[in-house]
C-alpha cells in the first residue's frame, strides 16, 4: 500500500495550484525517509491507499495538499506541513 499518483485535478481546491506529479517519484523525493513515510501512510479508517495532491511545496516538504481515500471518500488535508489524518468526526 502507499500513495497513488496525484488525483489529477479532482481533489484540487478552488483556485489553488495542483502540481501534476507522481509524488513518490525520485524527482520529488530525494529524502529517502520521507519517501518511505509516504509509502507506509494509509487511510486511518480502512487502512487502504491514499491519493496525494500537492498544492504548495517547500524544498522536499509538502506544505499544503490533500490526501484522499477513494474507498471511504474522505479527504485528509495537509496544512502547515502536517497531514490531518483525523477522521472528519474527530476534527474540530
Amino acid at each position, binding site marked *: 500500500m502507499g500513495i497513488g499518483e496525484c488525483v489529477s485535478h479532482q481533489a484540487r481546491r478552488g483556485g489553488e495550484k495542483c502540481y501534476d506529479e507522481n509524488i513518490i517519484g525520485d524527482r520529488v523525493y530525494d529524502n529517502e525517509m520521507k519517501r518511505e513515510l509516504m509509502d507506509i*501512510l494509509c*487511510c*486511518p479508517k480502512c487502512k487502504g491507499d491514499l491519493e496525494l495532491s500537492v498544492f504548495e511545496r517547500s524544498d522536499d516538504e509538502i506544505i499544503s495538499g490533500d490526501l484522499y481515500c477513494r474507498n471511504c471518500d474522505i479527504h485528509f488535508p495537509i496544512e*502547515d506541513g502536517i*497531514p490531518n*489524518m483525523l477522521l472528519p468526526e*474527530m476534527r474540530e
Partner: protein
Amino acid sequence: MNSIEIFERYAQEYDEWFDANRFAYESEVQALKKFVPKNSKGLEVGVGTGRFAVPLGIGVGVEPAKAMADIARKRGIEVYEAKAEKLPFDDSSFDFVLIVVTICFVQNPMQALREAKRVLKPGGYIIIGMIDRESFLGKLYESKKKESKFYRHANFYSTRQVLDWLKKLEFEYIKTCQTIFKDPKKITGIEPVKEGYGEGGFVVISAQKQA
C-alpha cells in the same frame, strides 16, 4: 473541554514544564534510553511537542492536538495529526513504537495498544513510559488532579494494569525500569534508573511483538 482541546490551547505552557523540571525530564529520558533501540525506525504515538522524540532520535510522530504538532514539526519531527486508536500507517511499518505519558490521555488504551502492535514489524518493540498510579507520584498527581489543567483529564493506570494488557495482546519478553523517586519539584539532580517497578513514579515498559 476534552484533553485534546486542553493541549491545543495550552501547548506552550505544557512545553515549558520540561524546562522548569529539567532534572525530572532528563531522568525520564535516561530511563527511556535503556529500552529504545538505536538505529532503527521508530514512531512516537502522542509525540506532543517532541520533547522525547528529539533526544531519543525518533523521526516520526502522531499527535491529535495541532498546536502541539506544530511545535514538534519545528523541532524536526515528521508529524501527523492522528489519534492513537486510529493510526494512519500500514501494518508492520516500524521497528519500535514509543508511547510516553500518553496512555493516561487516550480514550481507549487497549485499542491504542492494539494499533501500536499492528504497525509494529514482527519482533518489533513497544516502549511505554508512564506515571504509575500505584507509586507515590501517581498518588500525588491523582490527589492534585483537579488543580492541573492537564491532569484533570488524565486516567492514570497502574504498571500492573498495562502489563496485563500487553500480555493479553500476546507481547513477549516484557521488561521494566523506573526512575523519579521523589517529588519532581524537589529533585536537584538526575535521578537514578533502576530495574523493575514499584518504587519509581515514572516506569518504562518494553515488550516485543511476536517474531
